[in-house]
């Protein structure tokens, strides 16, 4: 195979790879950082990361209904309702990422992920 065909092949592969990266950037669930923006997405699932507000967590063990509040950097809070068992690390987690839809005043989450504390600092 001539050199030209190799060059063309590599260019083709690079092209496909670039297309793939663009595709994935567009199709990932949008990551929202402000509570105010969530409403604009309507029925589309979004991901939101916020600080867990202490003292607003309720958990009904029978129905697996976990209700808590997340706050964004601006201080606005979001009421979240998660259908599922309460993760063990919920008490020590400081941030949570939820994925779901904003419906009827509450954010109904189908995925809940607790962020591990990333401050590798000593106790002051």
């Amino acid at each position, binding site marked *: *195979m001539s050199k030209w*065909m*190799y060059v063309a*092949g*590599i260019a*083709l*592969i690079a*092209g*496909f*790879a670039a*297309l*793939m990266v663009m*595709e*994935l950037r*567009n*199709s990932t669930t949008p990551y929202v950082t402000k509570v105010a923006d969530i409403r604009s997405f309507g*029925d*589309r699932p979004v991901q939101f990361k916020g600080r867990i507000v202490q003292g607003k967590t309720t958990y009904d063990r029978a129905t697996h209904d976990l209700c808590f509040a997340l706050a964004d950097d601006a201080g606005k809070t979001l009421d979240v309702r998660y259908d599922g068992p309460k993760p063990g690390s919920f008490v020590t987690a400081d941030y949570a990422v939820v994925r779901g839809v904003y419906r009827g005043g509450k954010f109904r989450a189908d995925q809940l992920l607790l962020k591990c504390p990333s401050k590798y600092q000593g106790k002051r």
Partner: protein
Amino acid sequence: MSLRGAVAVLVKDARCELRSKQAISAVLLFAVTSTIAVSFTLGMIGSDAAVASTLLWVVIYFSAMAGLGRSFAHEEETYTAGLLRLAVPAESVYVGKLAFNFLTLAAVEVVTVPLFVLLTDCRVARVGAFIGMLLLGSAALSAGATAAAAMVSRAASKGALFAGVSFPLLAPALGIAIAGTNAALASSPAGCAADMRLLVYYCGVVITASLMLFRCIWEE
């Protein structure tokens, strides 16, 4: 690379296969029995679109593992590989074998997919998208499997090695196909257009790379 050569390879393999029906009958038997086994359990737990699409693709994937590995191995075993190397340029061999593997997989799916849908009473929300996903997913699986089969044909222990070697190459295609079929079955609002495009890019990368590398894999 000559297209005529590729077609000749395809026709030769098709003729051999139709004559002996050895590989296709084994794969078909495997696929049908797995489909029945899967539908049996699925019927008991109730079919969720995600579970159904996963199990369907698992059946197709394992049928591919069972059936597509032989495409190069039997050339080596019957000592026709040397003649093939002389007669046709390397890239044509790859294209011909790729087409043959794809058609084999498609033939197996023509039987098993309707059987699966029937037995699990699976609701297909978008038929066109569903069939499109099946075709694209099969093309992706064939692309990776053909390259892997060629690499394994020179090796000593062919059967299990083929499945192990092709898994890393095929895993992303499998994941995308399952996600896309899930969307097609359950009619999620996003649809499976994104997954279809991803599979096209995947096929593009694997087929282009295999064409460029095939000479190194195939030649003595």
